């Protein structure tokens, strides 16, 4: 299958006049080939991408920089602080995942490990716009979502090593990252399982406002999942109910075109996932997921829509994972040419170029960030290495919030009251 290059043919968008927040997201895309970054959402008041006003084209960040007409001080999409924050977050994600691969091959990490290399723009673009009380629900490819949401790298690395200092005390693992403090609700191994849970978290936000009368509760939930999940029944059930009850949720599809070895095009009758949004009465948007600035623009709109109480949005981010599905995946089915095409669109390199060329920061500052992140990741590994493994008594802990759930022991008292209970010697 042939992918057109990053600069695909664009169809002139017919929406520049639609300024209202709602309508622009319902832009329909005329039947251009799905592959490559096709024309998409509304164009914001960002002369940064002013090219599109004429040709209606939206291009990758790097392209825009090249074709930029020399105007006086262009309105940049981000400030310097934001730019550096985005850069740092993406580099943290990348460095962390690379370190995970190293640790896995050294035997420090085990089981199923799914890495996020190449998709950082989606995580950073969305999650950096959230408040602490907003929640994120993810799938098994959740390390970087955890890091972007604010879970310390040390806690994530320890969790992966299975140590007791991990964010879930070593009881969750790579695929089950939870953090009550940062409102990261997991970490689910079954694809599609997180979507109803995310919808429920959004439901809670609405319930708190309407029934419990916490009038300023405007928490938003983001559900991240992949292209394979979009064929699962639960996805549709939740699109329906979220739109029906106007829940404050954004459904973010990280369409990396592959579900392990199953190509999206082989498994889906209509591969354009964003079209499934309007079928349920919500806007469906397609965005270039390799470009963090574009993702951020779309995310801003979708998240503020949800915060205002206007309901859900379905955002399809076209992205790519540079590594295999998991570290155990030999990744033989993907065409190397396709891989190299996407590697050329590496979101980190693109952002770096943008930052430098719009004089937001110097190369030296970015290098300093790289170095800092390297140290953070190394420190995380050291911390995880030195942390203790869970003690035997931890095995029986945390099964129930109310530990009487273990029932009554042979002496007639609740088992959890037996002093030997958590030493693992109590018979259950």
């Amino acid at each position, binding site marked *: 299958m042939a992918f057109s290059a990053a600069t695909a043919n664009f169809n002139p968008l017919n929406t520049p006049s639609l300024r209202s927040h709602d309508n622009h997201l319902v832009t329909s895309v005329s039947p251009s080939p799905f592959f490559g970054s096709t024309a998409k959402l509304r164009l914001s008041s960002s002369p940064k991408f002013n090219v599109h006003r004429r040709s209606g084209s939206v291009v990758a960040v790097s392209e825009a920089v090249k074709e930029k007409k020399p105007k006086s001080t262009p309105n940049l999409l981000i400030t310097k602080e934001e730019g550096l924050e985005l850069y740092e977050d993406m580099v943290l994600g990348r460095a962390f995942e690379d370190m995970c691969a190293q640790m896995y091959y050294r035997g420090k990490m085990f089981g199923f490990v799914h890495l996020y290399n190449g998709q950082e723009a989606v995580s950073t673009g969305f999650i950096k716009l959230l408040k602490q009380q907003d929640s994120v629900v993810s799938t098994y490819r959740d390390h970087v979502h955890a890091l972007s949401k604010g879970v310390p790298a040390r806690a994530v690395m320890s969790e992966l090593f299975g140590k007791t200092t991990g964010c879930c005390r070593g009881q969750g693992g790579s695929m*089950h990252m939870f953090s009550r403090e940062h409102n990261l609700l997991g970490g689910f191994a079954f694809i599609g399982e997180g979507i109803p849970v995310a919808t*429920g978290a959004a439901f809670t936000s609405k319930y708190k406002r309407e029934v419990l009368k916490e009038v300023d509760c405007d928490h938003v939930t983001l559900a991240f999942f992949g292209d394979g999940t979009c064929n699962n029944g639960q996805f549709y059930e939740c699109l329906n109910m979220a739109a029906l009850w106007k829940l404050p949720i954004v459904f973010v599809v990280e369409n990396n075109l592959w579900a392990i070895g199953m190509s999206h095009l082989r498994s889906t009758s209509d591969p354009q996932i964003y079209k499934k949004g309007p079928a349920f009465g919500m806007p469906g948007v397609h965005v270039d997921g390799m470009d963090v600035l574009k993702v951020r623009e779309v995310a801003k709109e979708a998240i503020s829509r949800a915060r205002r109480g206007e309901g859900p949005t379905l955002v399809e981010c076209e992205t790519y994972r540079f590594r295999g599905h998991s570290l155990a995946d030999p990744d033989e089915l993907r065409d190397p040419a396709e891989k190299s095409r996407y590697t050329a669109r590496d979101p980190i390199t693109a952002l770096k170029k943008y930052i430098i060329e719009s004089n937001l920061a110097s190369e030296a500052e970015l290098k300093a960030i790289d170095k800092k992140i390297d140290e953070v990741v190394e420190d995380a590994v050291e911390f995880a290495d030195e942390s203790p493994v869970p003690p035997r008594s931890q095995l029986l*802990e945390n099964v129930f919030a109310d530990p009487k759930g273990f*029932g009554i022991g042979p002496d007639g008292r*609740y088992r959890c009251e037996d002093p030997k209970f958590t030493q693992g010697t109590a018979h259950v």
Partner: protein
Amino acid sequence: MLGIVRQKMLEQSLKKIRPAVAVLRSYSSAAKQMNVREALNSALNEEMSADSKVFLIGEEVGEYQGAYKITKGLLDKYGTERVLDTPITEAGFAGIAVGAAYYGLKPVVEFMTFNFSMQAIDHIINSAAKSNYMSAGQISVPIVFRGPNGAAAGVGAQHSQCYAAWYATCPGLKVLTPYNSEDARGLLKAAIRDPDPVVFLENELLYGESFPISNEVLDSSFCLPIGKAKIERKGKHVTIAAYSKMVGYSLKAAEILEKDGIDAEVINLRSIRPLDRSTINDSVRKTNRLVTVEEAFPQHGVGAEICACVVEESFAYLDAPVERIAGADVPMPYAANLERMAVPQVEDIVRAAKRACYRSVP
């Protein structure tokens, strides 16, 4: 704790009621009758009015007043924000309820029958039961999944399975099986107040049955402890352990056995997970013979678990092999006579008890 005290008081008062109707007149505490449907409805009503975080979600719970009228009147009283009619999306709404429970709301999810819970079982097991463990205690899930379980009358194979054993295998879940109205009220209130996921297995045929009920049970803070079985009838020759509808059958069997001189002790398990092993074992140590009764398929069932636990803990006290009565090992047939054969009847329990007492050859 209070619940246990109340339970003891109740046991005593109920014990006095049973023998003769004439005695009833002198005990004003036990004059009321309430059917299981009303018991469940009143429990839901009281818990919803006590805590505004409790909400109902399920198919037909609102405008239809509940598929089996359990949630009658609750929509009018609490409004559409707290009594949610859902589309036919078990996986979706069970997951939504779990997500809401992650944030401290207390959903009561109704499955029209527990057979439909199989469509949502991923959420019951993977995102509800296991979450407290996977998140190391950060996220608890105070959710209740309730609905009718087990065989009804002539509803066929796909609507008649009993799921007690399935859910009881999973750590992180609590599984409750009420029998009479007192159980229904007490256990449902306990389940809603409990901070962990609870699977509450009712029985459709019991909904209309009335039971005598005392004033303690009607009190709005009445609650039964989870994990304690109840000895419905004290005896000394054989122990019959059952749950849900089979408790009623076992009590009838006990009356028949009494005429033959066998004094049976009937245990109403009430809680399948955690199983009240100590009550069962104490009873077996007293009577030395055990019959387990359940309506579900025999293999890997609750009876098998009870048998194993008794053998592990009270082997020396057993005077006879454990008798296990269960449903037939076939999908439930439709024809009425076949259905009768596929579910345990009172005669089966009587025969099993006699076998355990070496009174007859099968």
